[in-house]
């Protein structure tokens, strides 16, 4: 469960709030869509979960962990319980699809046997089993995002934060990625927080939608409608 209790966040000397007095509860296994214009606070909300940003007021919980209390040395462990994907994929161009996913396991000290067993399984989950040896430059945007998703999931995080993952993709590939996220949520029971601008996608998937404006939640609805 993710819990925001009266959370307020301001950047530096800016007058406006990035996040203002937010109260939010996200249950395990939920699929949440975060909508709002640029600067509405979507990314800040995610950074407060990852611990990259600290609250000015209020508390953020991930399960029993009070994220505000995490010290510098606790951050790596905290981040291992999260998977994160971005608009720009953040794949290593010099590594193949397989190596990009394996990289996330290698640095956590997983042995080669485990890597060679697990990576193909996750390549198949994201539908990229046949492209294990391709480099990012040999893949389409949608395919790169699938690899990024597999990398985010390989260490089996409880929560997947998707920050505008379809922002760089065409309509066809966007749908592809959204369907993949829905499948992952359903099959792996991973909690997914999906930030997007894409109104059509939001209106079609019929999930809980949280609308943000100027750092405030203006709507939290299960009707699956993109309304700001």
């Amino acid at each position, binding site marked *: 469960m993710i819990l925001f209790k009266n959370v307020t966040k301001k950047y530096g000397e800016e007058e406006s709030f990035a996040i203002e007095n937010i109260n939010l509860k996200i249950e395990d296994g939920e699929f949440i869509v975060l909508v709002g214009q640029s600067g509405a606070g979507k990314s800040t909300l995610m950074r407060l979960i990852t611990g990259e940003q600290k609250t000015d007021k209020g508390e953020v919980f991930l399960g029993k962990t009070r994220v505000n209390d995490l010290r510098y040395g606790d951050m790596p462990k905290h*981040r*291992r319980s999260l998977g*994160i994907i971005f608009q720009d994929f*953040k794949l290593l161009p010099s590594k193949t699809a397989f190596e990009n996913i394996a990289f996330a396991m290698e640095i*956590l*000290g*997983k*042995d080669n046997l485990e890597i060679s067993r697990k990576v193909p399984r996750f390549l198949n989950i994201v539908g990229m089993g046949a492209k294990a040896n391709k480099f990012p430059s040999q893949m389409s945007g949608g395919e790169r995002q699938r690899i990024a998703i597999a*990398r985010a999931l390989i260490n089996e995080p409880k929560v997947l934060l998707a920050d505008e993952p379809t922002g760089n993709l065409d309509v066809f590939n966007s749908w592809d990625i959204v369907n993949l996220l829905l499948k992952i949520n359903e099959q792996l029971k991973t909690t997914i927080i999906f930030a997007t601008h894409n109104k059509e996608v939001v209106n079609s998937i019929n999930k809980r939608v949280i609308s943000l404006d100027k750092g405030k939640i203006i709507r939290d609805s299960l009707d699956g409608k993109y309304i700001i």
Partner: protein
Amino acid sequence: MDLFFSTIIRSIKYGFQNFGRNIFLSIATTSIMVLTLFGLGFFMVINQISSDALSGIQARVDISVYLKEGLEESQVNDFISYVKSIEGVRETNLITKEMALEKFKETYKDNPSIIQSLQVLDENPLPVTLTVKAESSDFYQSINDTLLASKYKESTIQETDYQKSTSKEIIDRLNNVIKVTRNVGISVIVVLATIAVLITYNTIRLTLYSYRQEIEIMRLVGANDTQIKGPFFVEGVLFGVFGTFISFLILFVVVLLISQTITSFISGAQSPSEYVLNKSFLIIGIQLTVGIILGVGSSLIAINRYLKV
């Protein structure tokens, strides 16, 4: 696999990879490290040669204190006790009139006219002499001054020959040469070390830049501080290690080439190549320590400045 060991293995693997990724930069950094460590090793050799030369001369130097005629044995003993109490005195040696005469005869045995002129005299003209050796050449002047300022100057001392001797001049000159060499050597090493730190720092900074994507991804998937910083730390160590072995090799070749010239110029000095061979572990140890400190130090400065994990 245990995370600790896998982190170490990974750090070593990627440390070597970092080294090879910017190979020309790595060669430049290793070269300046080689120059610095060669300077350090060469300084050690020069220091040893000059110390040997100084010790050789010092061993032959003393102050001869000529005592007045007709002193009682107790007065002489009292004086010897006083001399031994002066700071810096290592040993004293009393030469009686008879011993002095024997020595004189031995010295001039090939010059009968001098020996005959001595026989014309009714009594032994040579004075009782106390030779004084100091702990180091720095003490001779102060020992001589103390003697001449003491109450024994009037009652016991006829004269001292330290001022007349050229030994003082030689020792002073050699001491000055050693001090200047030492200061110049240390200054050169400090300058080279500073350049080495700056270049290594810059190399690590560029490596960090070229690895920025990997670092970001590592951070995202929960790599800890050691995992992220380890390879750059290892890269710093590698500059020190490679620098040490290459510089020792060059040092040995250079010393081998100049060894004969040095030993023929400075009598009593140990052959430099022999010194390098005998003390190879010590020299490599010191070079390695300094090299690693410089490499790792500059690496850590760059990491802490540019790598906010």
